[in-house]
């Protein structure tokens, strides 16, 4: 009973009720278990593995060695183009179950029977997945990529500011798909509908602009081109600010809708 004298009631109130504890729990699922190194290894294999394979293929085709800027440009193009799509797929797959799974298993009802606000429940899931994916699938992989680019291109390194711009674009891309999935999870009760809609939207970017070019101006699909372009200082279309602004605005809008809908969820 002595412990009870030391313990104080939590001070969080209103929409922040339960926020700190839930965020600790959600981050613990990423970094407090074996998940972090499994994810790190998986993303290294997927993103940097592709670059290694292409570099090895280029080297075998040109036995005298590669021109100094050739491999650098190729590596940047491959890595950032591929990362934009692969990390978006990863973001969708990792978060699609976050709310639906807890609703179906009954743990959401258990957690929300404690002094926890519904916004805390939704926002902590978003933040933990955003942090987990950003650190393990984007930041860590970019560090490894920079090291291997230096190796393949005999000392060429991306400049800091363009690299940060490219990273910012990749992070914004995954936040878009994560917030979209969270919003869909509050409307649909099946994982298939959430995953199918989000991935359908992602892969539509590979074909739809061929028939409806204007869609490129309102969807985040151009990020996979803009990210490598930022590092290679290539010219971006002068309208590229439009899809970027829409993507940036869509994230809080999706989250807002998710919060509004989840507030009305019957558990």
């Amino acid at each position: 009973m002595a412990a009870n004298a030391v313990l104080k009631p939590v001070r969080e109130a209103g929409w922040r009720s339960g926020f700190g504890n839930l965020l600790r729990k959600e981050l613990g699922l990423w970094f407090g278990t074996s998940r972090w190194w499994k994810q790190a290894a998986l993303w290294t294999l997927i993103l940097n593995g592709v670059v290694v394979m292409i570099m090895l293929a280029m080297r075998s085709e040109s036995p005298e060695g590669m021109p100094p800027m050739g491999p650098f440009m190729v590596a940047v193009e491959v890595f950032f183009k591929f990362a934009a799509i692969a990390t978006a797929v990863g973001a969708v797959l990792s978060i699609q179950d976050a709310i639906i799974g807890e609703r179906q298993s009954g743990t959401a009802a258990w957690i929300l029977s404690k002094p926890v606000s519904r916004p805390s429940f939704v926002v902590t899931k978003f933040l933990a997945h955003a942090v987990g994916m950003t650190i393990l699938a984007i930041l860590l992989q970019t560090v490894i990529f920079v090291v291997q680019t230096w190796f393949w291109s005999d000392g060429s390194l991306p400049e800091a500011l363009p690299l940060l711009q490219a990273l910012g674009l990749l992070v914004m891309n995954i936040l878009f798909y994560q917030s979209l999935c969270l919003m869909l999870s509050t409307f649909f009760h099946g994982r298939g509908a959430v995953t199918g809609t989000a991935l359908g939207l992602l892969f539509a970017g590979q074909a739809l602009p061929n028939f409806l070019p204007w869609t490129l101006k309102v969807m985040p699909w151009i990020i996979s081109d803009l990210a490598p372009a930022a590092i290679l200082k290539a010219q971006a279309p002068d309208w590229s600010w439009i899809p970027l602004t829409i993507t940036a605005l869509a994230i809080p809008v999706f989250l807002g809708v998710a919060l509004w809908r989840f507030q009305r969820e019957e558990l």
Partner: protein
Amino acid sequence: MVIETQGLSKSFKGVNALNGLDLRVPEHSIFGFLGPNGAGKSTTIKLLLGLIRPTAGTGRVFGLDIVQENVSIRKRVGYLAQDPRYYDHMTARETLRLTARFFYEGPAGAIEERVNETLDLVGLREKADRPIKGFSGGERQRLGIAQAQINYPDLLILDEPAASLDPMGRKDVLDIMERLRKHCTIFYSTHILEDVQRVSDTVAIMNKGQLVAQAPIGELLSGSGRTVYSITVKGDGAEARRTLEQQPWVSSVEATEEAGQTAHWQIAVTDDEAAEARLLRLVLSDEHCTVTEFGRRRYNLEEVFLGLVGGEQRGR
């Protein structure tokens, strides 16, 4: 009152699960919330906790509105669901640690001490570090009670706490409830009438989403609205019975005969005072029979329950 509802209603896709519930739960009571499956018990509990929203009516817990102030309500409530679900990858200790941190902040050691104290209360200290995945139904239920009272709640809400347990498990749960009764109000739903009769002091009976009775258990068992006396007589009681039937305060006499000239009479009366003063005297004054047993009829809860909801249930 700890809980007060007025006209609380809930419908799901046009089907009424709860219809105009007026409930009053006094402080420091063990309040048994009875009803058959589908009576609206779990719906009521979820409404009180803010897990679902009412279609109509209002509810207050500790004077706080169940729609607008449910987070504040949950700070003072412990809840055990009918089919409690936790994160299976966590151990009992981790589950209680997570739960405790929703209520308390302070040094990790103090949180741990609180967790250990709770584990001891429900007898789970030995299994505290095993994943919940491998827990039996009884162990899960004990963990459920532990997590429900880790915050020393002013109100403990238990939804069918003993439903899935064997007799030993049920006894354990009822013992824990009796231990906790001095610290808080306990509001629990059940359809196990024996348990209610053992531990409850106030009872509400639900049927088809409606409240059909609410009273202290003693009042409910003494006869729902009418008083009945039970008399066993030996010998020829025909004359005495006729005399009773002629009394204006006797509404009916039901008799069952036994071998050896013994009969049991159930005498329903409309005037308690007249019955107390005269009933036994009238029978004793008849020289052809002797009274071997006499008393005011006490119902058991099953009879009261079946009287209120049983007919409709059987008729389904």
